[in-house]
């Protein structure tokens, strides 16, 4: 009864269209015209539940567990939302067999890749192939009639000992932090943006104004762009922010970064000056941002000038690039690149004098800064 379909990239819509025929007519959201019309426009009360499961950064399933009724029909939509380029699979197992199956998967050794690290084991109730990042699989499941805790696990080598969860079929859930069927990291928070990159999330961030924006860039770089100050504040590498403490409470708590930033701008250091390198700090006003396919482009006014500033991952090497476009500057533009021992700045145009980049109005119309650091490693 298992149907598996695998889609890559953002083809989730296609996956749903494919899934729809497996559902009763009234459940089909994808092709209503082909089906007899429902009597009422309101939502039907009897639906097959769809459970969305994500593979997340840090070898985690989200959710780490869920409840189901014995014998219940479910649709599992499983997506690899891991942003650190790791492939994962999903195996649903008979109760109490997880470690045995994980061990057998590891023993596949050189045969493992061809089998998607799925061993031949009678305890496997259903499984997906190995899913690359953004890979999506849809499984139809009838929960076994036997009451029990059914583990699910990723059997990719090295993952199976920590990356697992459980379906509670007719068994009450223990407290999350005390659940013996879950790994110790299950009680941790969720990564904002559900693994999408690029992504922008506004939420309270450490070491920035209350109006700062967290940016997840394609790849594994992240940045804090502060809309309260209209400037880049810091960059870090790895998973995006964990905002769960902020979201679970009244909004007081700050989001957590997954790693110590490899670069920080100094406090109160607005980088742009107009006319002279030591001219007064121009007043900055945030105007908004555009979500482009390669990342958000921020817009702000600095003094008289309107600035567009896009934060991008550096190509081919660890670091960031900052594409800055200043429309119709009336005179020379100065960019104060804050220096620290580990950081290196380069620019496509302009003249460096120490850490200050001088740009003609024409150069300032479109220039790209590259920021790299000894602390930011491949």
């Amino acid at each position, binding site marked *: 009864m298992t149907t598996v379909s695998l889609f890559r990239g*953002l083809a*989730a*819509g296609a996956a*749903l269209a494919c*899934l729809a025929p497996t559902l009763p007519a009234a459940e089909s*959201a994808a092709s*209503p015209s082909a089906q007899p019309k429902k009597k009422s*426009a*309101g*939502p*039907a*009360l009897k*639906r*097959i*539940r*769809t*459970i*969305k499961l*994500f593979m997340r950064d840090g070898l985690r399933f989200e959710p780490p567990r869920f409840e189901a009724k014995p014998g219940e029909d479910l649709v599992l*939509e499983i997506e690899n939302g891991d942003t650190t380029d790791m492939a994962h699979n999903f195996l649903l197992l008979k109760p109490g067999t997880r470690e045995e199956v994980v061990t057998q998967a590891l023993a596949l050794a050189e045969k493992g890749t061809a089998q998607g690290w799925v061993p031949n084991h009678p305890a496997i109730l259903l499984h997906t192939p190995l899913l690359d990042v953004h890979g999506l699989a849809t499984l139809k499941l009838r929960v076994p009639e036997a009451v029990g805790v059914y583990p699910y696990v990723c059997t990719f080598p090295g993952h199976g000992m920590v990356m697992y969860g459980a379906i509670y079929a007719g068994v009450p859930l223990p407290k999350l932090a005390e659940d013996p069927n879950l790994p110790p990291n299950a009680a941790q928070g969720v990564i*904002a*943006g*559900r693994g*999408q990159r690029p*992504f*922008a*999330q*506004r*939420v*309270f961030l450490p*070491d*920035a*104004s*209350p*109006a700062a*924006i967290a940016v997840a860039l394609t790849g594994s770089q992240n940045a804090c762009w502060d*809309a*309260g100050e209209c400037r880049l504040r810091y960059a870090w590498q790895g998973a995006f922010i964990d*905002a769960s403490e902020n*979201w*679970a*409470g*009244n*909004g*007081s708590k700050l989001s957590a970064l997954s790693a110590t930033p490899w670069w920080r701008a100094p*406090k109160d250091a607005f980088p742009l000056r107009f006319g002279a390198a030591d001219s007064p700090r121009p007043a900055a006003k*945030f*105007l*908004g*941002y*555009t*979500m*482009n396919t390669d990342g958000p482009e921020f817009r702000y006014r600095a003094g008289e000038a309107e600035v567009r500033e896009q934060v991008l991952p550096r190509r081919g090497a660890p670091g960031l690039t900052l594409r800055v476009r200043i429309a119709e500057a009336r005179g020379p533009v100065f960019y104060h690149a804050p220096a620290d021992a580990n950081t290196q700045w380069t620019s496509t145009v302009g003249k460096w004098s120490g850490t200050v980049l001088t740009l003609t109005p024409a150069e300032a119309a479109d220039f790209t800064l590259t920021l790299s650091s000894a602390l930011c490693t491949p």
Partner: protein
Amino acid sequence: MKPLFLSPLAALALALTSPLDASAAEPTKAAVNETRVEQHYAIGKLPTPSGVDPQIGGLAVARDGRLAAAFHHGEVAFFDPKTTSWKIFAEGLHEPLGLLVEDDGSVLVMQRPELTSLRDTNGDGVADSYETVWDGFGMTGNYHEFAFGPVRGPNGKLYVSLNLASNGASVREEIRGAWVDLGLPREQFYAGEWGGKVANAAGRMYSRVPYRGCVIEVDPQTGAGTPFAFGFRSPDGMGFDAAGNFFVNDNQGDWRGTSPVHVVKRNGFYGHPASLVWRQDWDGGDPLKFPVEKLEALRSQPAIQIPFASYANSPTQMLTIPKTPAWGPFGGQMIVGEMNVPRIFRLLPEEIDGTWQGACVLLIDTKKLQGGLHRFAWLGDTLVVGRTHLSWAGGEGLGTVKPAGPTPFDPLTMHVTPRGFRFDFTAPLAANAAEPSRWIGQRYYYKYHASYGSPEMEKTEFAAAKVTLSNGNRTVDVELPDLKPGFIYDFDLGHVESTAGEPPLNPRIAYTLNRVPTK
């Protein structure tokens, strides 16, 4: 971005409360009420998008009939009632607590740091432009600085409201906006000195950056924001009635003996002193140290006070009931939601010689609504309710309310008269309603002071002196021995009956008497 498939209806909703103990010899009053509510209203639920935290910050209906919702983690999504499917429109917003859908399909949303216009410029159905409409206000990072709205006035202007900060927490080291010192430097708020003395000196709720505690008028053309009304604490509910009067409510707390509903005017002051520092006539002093008499003279009285606990704790959105056959005589009246108790109220304001006042009465009181009734929108006759809690009392998910039977026997309107009150009912009263002893209640007032909340002051019982029935026994003139402005007249209509011998579905109705009419 991905179209989202419907999540299971049951998965995200809270468990419904089952009817009360069936083994009891007699059903309790609450159980009787639950059963009666079912005879008049159908309460259901709507799914929320899968994978999205189902706390609702804002609801609105687009011109094409789709429902827009803003969610706790920052998503804005559209629900198409025809396909019952959700599509995410925008993501990553900071605690959005209200939205409007424009005729061109763009969405105005108030998030914690700004009023934003979300626009799909490339036609893929997903917003790519997050344009700042107005962010000219301060943020200290204090959790209580929520931002609500926008609502659109008849003049085309947008109105948003900004909460005060709470002394339950301090401020961030980095803030946005200029700090108002009032004898307490900012460092004392975030440094080790916070708590105890500094927290007390700051006031229970404080406004140290622009324009916390104000309702703001934003010109959508120029993006200019100007403080419009002052004196608020946590003004979650704003709305205009059909005549263009601007209603803003607030939450019980310091300087709020109970939760008020105000009809606000430009430059008006509505009670909480902290935001007076943003009014043009501010003299530089600490408004929290102004004598109460001075503040009392400055402030406009609430039009309607919603009695604390016995009615509601924390009022939310206000919206007008559509004039459709399904809603019958309630069409055109205003409703207001409530966070702590699963209740929806009707508001019955009236203007007497230039003074606003009026009554509040329950519309629906049943556990089936679930708590946290934060946001409302109309999908035709169906009231969609969006719940939230933000870690306080409340709920989550989307519910629906629709009339599913005859209009209940209830007080329809309540007006003050020179000697008492006139009630209209939805159905004729039994002849015994002419007995004055059946028309009873209590009057009291709430104290205007810095302390949190207030007891019911000078609480006394009253009974009618004279009762006159008219209009086929649907209208009742109740004369009281005396009428005292400044008091809330809280009637218990549980002793009057319909011709079928049934008491009103919602027998409590409380009128805030600011002024007694001369004729």
